[in-house]
């Protein structure tokens, strides 16, 4: 029930399969230990908050060891270049976003805060309140961050198109 969302969230946040797995495993143990402190009726939001923290812990550990994964610009660039159009009308957005690889590459290029909020909103379809609980920010911040994330994503999609054209 909640393991799939957890795994997906971890992959979006860490952008690394192995790290995501470690983070989910760790989060499961933590949630098991803290099960009696589960707050509120929303088990999914409670669990995803633990998963997110676990991901951030894993990333912190990696940075300390100086082994942070290099951002593979070439790979992303190549994927990004596969789009093809002139401007971003709603029809264009719909057409280009149907290319899952291309779309994922666009989202992958966003900073972590924006990746996770888009994932929680569009993939998990969570409410602002739930997202606020998971990301640990007030609802107003969820609103402005999501808005910014969508602006950036749209810009990236447009830039990718331009690059493909030139």
């Amino acid at each position, binding site marked *: *029930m909640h*393991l799939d969302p957890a795994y997906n969230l971890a992959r979006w946040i860490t952008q690394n399969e192995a790290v995501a*797995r470690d983070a989910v495993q760790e989060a499961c143990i933590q*949630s098991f230990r803290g099960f009696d402190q589960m707050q509120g009726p929303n088990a999914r939001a409670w669990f995803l908050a633990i998963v997110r923290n676990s991901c951030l812990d894993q990333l912190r550990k990696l940075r300390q060891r100086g082994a942070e994964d290099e951002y593979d610009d070439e790979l992303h660039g190549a994927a990004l270049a596969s789009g093809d159009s002139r401007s971003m009308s709603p029809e264009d957005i719909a057409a280009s976003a149907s290319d*899952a690889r291309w779309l994922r590459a666009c989202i992958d290029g966003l900073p972590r805060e924006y990746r996770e909020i888009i994932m929680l909103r*569009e993939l998990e379809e969570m409410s602002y309140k739930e997202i606020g609980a998971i990301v640990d920010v007030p609802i107003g911040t969820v609103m402005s961050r*999501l808005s910014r994330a969508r602006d950036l994503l749209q810009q990236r999609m447009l830039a990718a198109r331009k690059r493909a054209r030139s």
Partner: protein
Amino acid sequence: MNCTMALRMLDAYIDHELDAATSAEMAQHVVACAECSALRSQRVAMQTALRATLVREPAPASLRAAVLRDIREADARRATRAPRPPRSGSSWARAWQMMLLGASTAVAGAIGGWWFAQPQGLDGIPEYVVTRHVASLSPEGPRIDVASSDRHSVKPWFQGRVDFAPVVRDLSAQGFELVGGRLDRIGDRQAAAVVYRLRGHAINVFSWRVKGHDVEPDRSVTLRGFNVETWNEADMDFAAVSDAEGAELKRFVAAYRGS
């Protein structure tokens, strides 16, 4: 409502996060303002596309297995640390598992085997089944709420009393006489008990609805001289119990399951 405000609230608007009054004001503005209307269309197109394209990938089976192994170990440690925890080790793990893995039958089956291996085990469904069976017996015969050898009387009786349709078969050709049905409980679940008789031996078949499974598939145990057979189907668990011989009960279960 002016454009500055509208832009600030555009995302909350398409996400249906605005209160009704503000949302109505937004709707009015968007109809009147071509620029905001265009932005709204873009946003909606993006959201629709994202939701259509981004699919949740299932967690790999190996991760699922690793998680279950971790929890088993953590649960064992928990049990040693606290001899009498508020929720006993395995039912704790069970509750957690329900929360996390919920509907996954395959995993529930795998972990189910482990619960039963636990000493404090789900306080043993077979043990519970035997207790309910014994409680239903009296010198006059098994206690029943609806007495009938006609399955068309017994099955409808459960309508409105349990939220599933229990299996009631006419097994007289195989030597099992339908006696009737009864409302019962297995743990905190409401169960249907269908009662048969074989040469003076009462057979109770309990069935109840589950999310993850409570019982191991196709297991036979003998407790206090009673034989218990458990099995499960899609979202139902079953347990048959009787003082009839093990082989006879197996034959009964095969007939009852229609195999």
